[in-house]
Every structure is written in structure tokens, then in C-alpha cells.
């Protein structure tokens, strides 16, 4: 199989647009409709709040969920956000599902937690409090700021390194590829947030950063090959031909690497614990799109630039 990226570059750029547009639309819609005005539904890590998770020994029906919600509202807890997490317990424990209840930040010494527990107790047989996460409101803002700083610094660090090892326009193409991948993953999570109430947390940002690292891996492998081939063939072949040859030479590696990583991630997604499901999903999406972007998107960009300045290249 031989891919002709150069000839079809505009098709690939259009395909990227098609992949990104639904997510971007969902993000804009979310920014308008959510109270937080964020493009994705953000969890307590970033807004502050308390999440109480109760493990129960039965499937949670919608009726029970509604009963818990009204019970909480009667107890004076406003706008609780409820989510069901299905568990297929691996060990002999009879945990069937987890009911996750998110409320405003419960201060020390407040009896709100006891109120929630008594509401859940009244609906289920012997529920077990399996997880409590609580983040103060000011801390949430701080974490959000830190995550944005971390993300920007990581991008800057990568640009600096690539400029040092390659040249600035390669670095720019790589970064545009990363932005492409980040928007795609954020977009999918924005859609998931709208339909299934999926929230992003600190782990999600970790997943994004990992995806960035991985995607840059792929892009570097292609660029490294272009750099090497340029040394030998720049007099005989056009830049477009070299680009095509380099992509085809690295194609097997790019696909095999992503495939092996996706195999492990898929195993984690289907057989791993419930707490890391969204984290793993973000990485699966990101690594798949990262492979696509480094083969098709970044190389198309570079080719278009190099094409414009062809006479200068020897």
C-alpha cells in the first residue's frame, strides 16, 4: 500500500475539519448553556464541590434515581448531580453499581454528608460509601489555573525542543497537530458531557498531556525521516516526493505502535476499574487521532508551506 499524501492533502485537511466541527459546535453550545461557561462539563476538581459515591448491590433504576434526587432536595441540598456507574465487580464482592452524588462543597462539621447518606440508606439495602472527594471552591479555581499553565508550558517546551532539534516551521506544524488532537478529544468529551453528563477532572488533563506526548512522538518519527531523506535526496526529488516516501517508510511503525498502545488501553477500558474509564477513553481517542494527525494533517501542512517556498530549498 502506498499513500499519496501530497496529492490528496486538501482532502485530508477537509477530513480533519469534518472530524473537528461537531466537537467545536458542542463546545460552543456548552459555553453558552452551562453555568460555568466552560466548553466541557467540569468536575469538582475545577469547580469545587463534594462527590459522594455509594456502592450498591443492585442495578439502579430510574425510579430510584428520581426518588434519591427528590429526597436530597427535600433535605435542603440544592441541584444535586447524580450519576450511575455500572460495575462488573471482578472479585467476589457483590458491588453492582455505584451511585455518584455531586453537591456543593460540604464544609467540615456540616451534617450535609449525613443527610445524603440517610437519603441513600432509605432507598437501597446496605449501601456502602466507597468514595468521597471534596475540593474547596478556591482550590478548584487554583487547580484549573494550574492545569492550564501545565498544558501551555508543555506545548511551549515541545515547541522549544523541536525548534532546537528541527526547525521552527516543523515545530509549528507539530503544535498545530497537537491543537488538532486536543480539540478533537475535548470535542468528544463535550458531546459526552451534553448527552451522558461526563465530567472532566484532573486525570483528564493528565490524559490530554499524555496524548500530546504520544502524538508528538508520531510526528517526530515522520519528521525525523523527512530530515534524513532530505540529506540524501534533496537534489533528485521534490519535497513532495520526499514527504510521501518518508510517510510510507514510517507508516508500518506508526500504525503498529498506535495499535499496540491501543491494545493495552482497550484492555484497560474493558477490563480495568471504573475509576479510570474516562481517563482511558480520553487516551484511546487521543492516540487514535494523534496517529491520524501526524500521518495526514501535519505532513500536509508542512508540504503546503514547503511548496510555497520551494525555490529556496536546495
Amino acid at each position, binding site marked *: 500500500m502506498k499513500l499519496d499524501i501530497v496529492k490528496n492533502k486538501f482532502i485530508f485537511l477537509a477530513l480533519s475539519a469534518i472530524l473537528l466541527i461537531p466537537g467545536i459546535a458542542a463546545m460552543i453550545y456548552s459555553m453558552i448553556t452551562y453555568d460555568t461557561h466552560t466548553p466541557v462539563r467540569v468536575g469538582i476538581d475545577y469547580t469545587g464541590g*463534594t462527590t459522594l*459515591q455509594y*456502592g450498591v448491590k443492585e442495578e439502579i433504576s430510574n425510579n430510584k434515581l428520581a426518588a434519591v434526587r427528590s429526597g436530597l432536595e427535600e433535605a435542603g441540598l440544592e441541584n444535586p448531580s447524580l450519576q450511575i456507574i455500572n460495575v462488573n*465487580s*471482578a472479585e467476589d*464482592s457483590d*458491588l453492582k453499581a*455505584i451511585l455518584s452524588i455531586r453537591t456543593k462543597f460540604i464544609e*467540615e462539621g456540616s451534617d450535609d*454528608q449525613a443527610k445524603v447518606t440517610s437519603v441513600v440508606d432509605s432507598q437501597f439495602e446496605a449501601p*456502602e*460509601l*466507597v*468514595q*468521597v*472527594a*471534596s475540593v*474547596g471552591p478556591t*482550590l478548584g479555581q487554583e487547580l484549573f489555573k*494550574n492545569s492550564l499553565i*501545565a498544558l501551555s*508550558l*508543555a506545548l511551549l*517546551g*515541545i515547541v522549544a*525542543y*523541536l525548534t532546537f532539534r528541527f526547525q521552527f516551521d516543523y515545530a509549528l506544524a507539530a503544535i498545530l497537530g497537537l491543537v488538532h488532537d486536543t480539540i478533537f478529544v475535548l470535542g468528544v468529551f463535550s458531546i459526552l458531557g451534553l448527552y451522558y453528563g461526563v465530567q472532566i477532572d*484532573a*486525570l483528564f488533563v*493528565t490524559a490530554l498531556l*499524555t496524548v500530546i506526548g*504520544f502524538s*508528538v*512522538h508520531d510526528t*517526530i*518519527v515522520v519528521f*525525523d525521516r523527512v530530515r*534524513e531523506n532530505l540529506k*540524501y535526496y534533496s537534489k533528485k526529488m521534490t519535497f513532495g516526493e520526499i514527504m510521501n*516516501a518518508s510517510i510510507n*517508510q514510517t507508516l508500518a*511503525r506508526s500504525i*503498529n*505502535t498506535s*495499535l*499496540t*498502545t491501543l*491494545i*493495552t*488501553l482497550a*484492555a*484497560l477500558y*474493558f*477490563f*480495568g*476499574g471504573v*475509576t*479510570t474509564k474516562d*481517563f*482511558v477513553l480520553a487516551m484511546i481517542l487521543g492516540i487514535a487521532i494523534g496517529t491520524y494527525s501526524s500521518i495526514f494533517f501535519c505532513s500536509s501542512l508542512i508540504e503546503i508551506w514547503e511548496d510555497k517556498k520551494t525555490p529556496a530549498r536546495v
Partner: protein
Amino acid sequence: MKNKLIMFWAIVLIVIASIVTICVKPTKLGLDLVGGSRLVLEAAPTNGIVTPDMMSSLQFAIENRVNKLGVSETVVQRSGDKRLVVEIPDVSDLDQAKAYLGETAELEFKKPIMISDVEAWGETGLTGKDLAKANLTTNSQNGQWVVGLEFNGEGAKKFADLTKELVGKPMAIFFNGELQSAPRVNEPITGGSAVITGGDSGFSYDEAKKMVDLLNAGALPVPAKIIEENTVGPTLGADSIAKSKIAGAIGLGFVMLFMIAYYRAPGIIADIALIIYGLILFALFKAIPVTLTLAGIAGFILSVGMAVDANILIFERTKEELKAGRTLFTAINSGFDRAFTSIFDSNMTTIITCVILYSLGTSIVKGFALTLAIGVIVSMFSAITVTKNFMHLVFGTGQLKHPEWFGLRADEIGEGFKAVETQREKAKFGILD
């Protein structure tokens, strides 16, 4: 060849050392895996200024309190300028523990002053910090529970000066901002001890006992608030461990099968290298020690992906060299050399990301970044030394006689993308043909 054998035995030694480490050292598992609580406390002094000294004594006081919970392996760590991270594994009554931790024990002695003609209580500089210890006793006159205080050297002097100053006037004792009693000072007290009675109503046993415990545990020098909590019940933790193990085993199994199916003989070598990689990494985690959390395990699995990537890069290049008709020895060498820049550059970007995550992230993110960074560094070692060494030992030198070992067809050989190389480049890759 002799060097290769020395290298081989060095690798064997490292593997043995790793296995011994794995058997001897315990694994440190994070609270999200074993169950437990992680609390973040923030110092919240009334004037808003937090000094490093204040934090040291706050840490000391919190450590004392945590130790009184009677749970083993608790951790109290500083985090940033004004925060403490407290980790308590498997506590039976968390609510009580939380209440106990956050409870302040601010003991203050105050004197009457006049602020614009209004009588008020003013600071005296004598506080709970000047205490040597507190004890629970009863008042010999009426049998009520009282809290006995013993001052340290400096405290005794301050107390003597204060009582001398206040003869004939009342002296107020505040505990956590609440007035306990304000007895009249009849004469200077120089013995360095005092009692707090509960005023007219007196203390109940529980009230007095709690005050003594709090004072002895070390007064929190500043009030502290719990601003973050993460508690995982033991059931969920056990479930996560069990599932991660299964998922890891299945994922790794499939990757190994894939490597053999696609790369054949080198695939088997890569699988062996991968097992060695896993052993070294796990031994390092235990030796350092790195606390394994769910995010840490994810970082570990991801680094396995990157270790496999290094092998794939190398094999793809080696196959290309073989297709170009090179001998086994040169093909393997130049495959490694040419793949190296890609491996190095891509791993460097991962390490850059990890450093940033580690320095800015929360503890979950830190665990992830640390395991990933260690994993990436070990993976470079394993790909460059272990895989290369085994490839040379297994395939030796000479022409490739069995192309199917590499998943190649005989008719593909010699048709490859032929590089027009300068003599210098050839020499660099050790190409002699």
C-alpha cells in the same frame, strides 16, 4: 563477540538483582488502591500571613494528632507554602478523625484593656505555645474537673510577669476564642503552673479531657481547614487492583502475541526484552520507592507502550536495511543507529511533559508523571542494550538466510529504498559491503 557476552551477563545480573528486589521489598500501594483518606489542610491564620516556622509547628502538631489515631503508616507532608497533605490508610471512623485533625487548640491568656473607653480583652503574648504540658485533675475544693497547666521555662517567666502586672485585676483564659474563665489575680504566681476551671458551671469530664488531649497533642499554632478530601473505601480499592491486574495481563498478552505475529523472531526477542523491562521497572518502583496509584499504573502501562514503540522503530529500520541486501550484523547495527534519533527525540518530549506535570500537578498527576518518566528512561535502556544485544547474539553475522524469521519474503530482499550514501555516512553505520 566477547563484548556481547559480557553485556549479556551484565543483563542477566541486572535481571537477578531486579527479581531479588521485587521479592524482598514491599510494594507501596496508594490509598486509592488499598482504601484510605487523603486530606489537604490549609493554614488559615486570622491575619492571613503564613510563615515557614508556623508551617513546621503546624506539621508537628498535626503529626502528633494523626499518631494518636492509632493507625499505622500515616503520612503528613508539606505541600506548597501553606498546605499539609495528610494520608490515613483504612481509618474506621473518618468523620471523627477529621473533626479531631481540624480542631484547633488555641489557648490564650488575656488582660483587660481599654479601647476608646470600652473595656476589652487584650493580648498578653502568653499562649498555648508556652505550655510544657496539660493534665486532667479535679479541683480539691469542689471536686469539679479542671485542666492543669504546666508552663515551660519561658512560659513560667511570662506567667509570673503577667500575674504580677495583673494583681487585683481579672485575667481571662480563652480556648479557641472562647472565654473559659476570668479569675481575679490575688498575688503573683511564680511556680509556673496554673489551672483552668470551667468558670461557674465547671467542665464536664469529656470537655476537660478533650481540652487536655488537644493541648498535649500540640496546639495548632494556626487554625487549619480541610480544603480537599479524597476517601476511597477498601472495597473499591480492592476491585481496582484486581481489575487493573487482569487488564494489564490481557493487554500485555495481546501486545506480545502481536509482536511475534508481525515481527517473528525479533518479536520474540522484543517480548523477552519487554519482560526484562517490566522486571527492572517494577524493581525500581520498589527500590525508590514509588507509591503506586491508579494513575501511576496508567503511566506504567503507557510506558510499556513506549517501550514497545522503541522496538518497533528498530525492527522496521532493520527490516528496511535487510531489504536493501545488507548483512545481518550491519542491518541490525544501522537499524539501531538510525532509529535512535527518533527514539531519543520522541522520548525527550515525553520527559519534558513529565517534568512539567510533576512540578505543577496535584499528587495524582505527579504519580502518573513519575512512573511514566522512569518508564521512558528504562525503556531506552532496554531497547538499546537488551534488544540489541540479544539480536546480535541470536542472529550473529553473515547474510540473512531465513528471511521468514523477520517476516520478509525472499523476493523482497535487495529491492529496498536504496540510500545514496557518502563514505562517511557508511562508515558511521559500520557498513563495509
